[in-house]
């Protein structure tokens, strides 16, 4: 799996690369428009993460030239500008997703995975983890072949965990993933706790294992280790 990261802020770029490496992605980072054009024309990537405001050009133009060569690459825009116009333009010219800085790395990871899954032509769009099986298109979950009835939030939570397995996911990242910006943090932590408790119970009722580990004062980790 090859990813091209186009981000001029080096430290942020390093962080993203470091996080992606653990996913066994091959993550190449470039820091300006010119380098990006070169890479895009030479190699094929499964996903491109692009900042709109590059010192020597606009990320939107990169997307346009990608679409000109009929590339099937998935595109995620990351921008410091939370501007609806940019978002609309970006999505209109063919980007798959739009993230506003500052974002949580697990969020970016989940979005990349979702895009790659959707582009996995021919193959079955499914997420497997031990005895858990998720069909994202149908929004179906099963444990050991038995289907699991989850609420929307529980389902979102499970997919988010599965995208970031073996990682510590902070409560803030979960809250933002489930409710967006408008939620009161103190309240949302309580709700996360309730949802996780229910999710855990539902999986275990069907004979599944308890994969959700609580990292005290910090967040949760979805792992079988």
């Amino acid at each position, binding site marked *: 799996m090859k990813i091209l990261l186009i981000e001029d*802020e080096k*430290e*942020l770029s390093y*962080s*993203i690369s*470091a*996080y992606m490496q*653990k996913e066994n992605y091959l993550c190449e980072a470039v820091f300006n428009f010119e380098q990006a054009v070169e890479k895009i024309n030479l190699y094929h990537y499964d996903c491109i993460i692009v900042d709109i405001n590059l010192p020597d050009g606009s990320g939107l133009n990169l997307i346009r030239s990608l679409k000109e060569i009929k590339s099937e690459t998935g595109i995620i825009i990351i921008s*410091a*500008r*939370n*501007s*609806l116009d940019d978002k609309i333009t970006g999505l209109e010219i063919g980007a798959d997703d739009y993230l506003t*800085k*500052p*974002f*949580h*790395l*697990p969020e970016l990871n989940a979005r990349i995975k979702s895009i790659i899954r959707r582009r996995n032509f021919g193959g079955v769009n499914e997420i497997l983890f031990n005895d858990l099986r998720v069909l994202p298109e149908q929004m179906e979950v099963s444990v050991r072949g038995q289907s699991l009835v989850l609420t929307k*939030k529980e389902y979102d939570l499970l997919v988010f965990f599965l995208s970031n397995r073996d*990682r*510590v996911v*902070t409560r*803030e*990242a979960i809250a933002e993933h489930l*409710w967006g*910006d*408008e*939620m*009161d*943090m*103190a*309240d949302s932590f*309580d*709700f996360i706790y309730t949802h996780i408790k229910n999710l855990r119970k539902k999986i275990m009722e069907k004979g599944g294992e308890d994969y959700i580990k609580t*990292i*005290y*004062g*910090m*967040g949760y980790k979805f792992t079988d280790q």
Partner: protein
Amino acid sequence: MKLLTRTSRSYIYISILVFIISGLVFYNLLHNIFKHQLDDTLIEEKMLVEQTINYSDSVPDFRLVFGHMIDVTILNSPQKNRGFISDTLMYDSELGTFASFRHLFTENTSIRHKGYTINIYKPLRDSEKLIAEIVISLALVFVSLLLLLVLVNYFITRRVWIPFYRILHNLSKYEINQSEPLELPQTDIYEFQLLNQTLQKMSKKIRFDYLNLKEFNENAAHELQTPLAIIKSKLELLVQKENLDENQHRLVSAIFEATTRISKLNQGLLLISKIENNQFIHTEDVNLEQLIDKTICHFEEMIDHRGITVSKKYQHRVTLKMNPVLAEIFITNLLSNAIRHNIYQGHIEIHILKDSFTIENTGQLLKTDPRNLFERFRKSANNPDSVGLGLSIVQNIANLYRMKIEYMYHEGLHTLKIFSINITN
């Protein structure tokens, strides 16, 4: 009081005062002059009487000569020379009442070695009549002069102050965040020109500072986003380290929460400056009912968690003409406010009327002045973790669409009424 009323009024008051004082002085002066003249005549008559007696050595009936009362008496034992002139009250046969007379009395011993007393009375009535006539005609002249002057003054003042009122009008219409600079009417009066120049200079400076500050706010908030993103990403990498102990986790968690708060604050400030910079031009028809229902759905967990009941009374179908993003933020912030500052098992009531809607919620009494409710960084003591920008953003959006918000409190119920909302027909 208007400037014109004030000047006209003072003008009239002062004129009347001057008239009364000068009238009194004038009257006295006139009175004295006439008295003096009368006294001169009395003395002349007395001398005439004395001369006549001296010549003829007899006392004729002087009354026939002068036509008024003269009384001459021969004294048997003359004492000394003396005399005076005074005012006296006597019966006036011509008027038929008592009237004021000027009375000359003299006692003379030197005429023909005999003594006489002479009393001459002269009525004051003629001179008083004259004085009265003079005073009345003068008063008439004065009053008409006063009226004329007041009128002239009124019209001149009004004309002179016209540029001032125009300047005032333009000034009151001026808003610092409008795109055009302050325009003031031309005038040929030096003071108003000076006023214009000063105002122009001031407004230019204020505008410059305002734009500068606005730009600074936006840039600062914007520039903060990237370092915040870096901090967040580094913290997320740090969290992944296997060998962190509980204490270190706690430290990282605290940094994480603080960073999240800064980032939320920053987003709020960015949003406010964007609203102020009018960056949400695009408007759509937004169904208020649907928007509120959707938002309540969004907050469902919070509402259930706090045991709050929500009742809705939609009496009209209202469609707002607003930017859809701002409309969503507007309603979200209002409802979030009503939920957050509610009590456990409280109540929220939403009313949609024809051109207004109200959101009413139970809650504790405000500890701050309700007038400051919409200011930035006003937080309630019950909720110290909130950023304190929610209602300020609401106010900003309301200003943008010229909606008005009113806060009311009555027996444990806080009501926010949003009226003159931007509806489409």
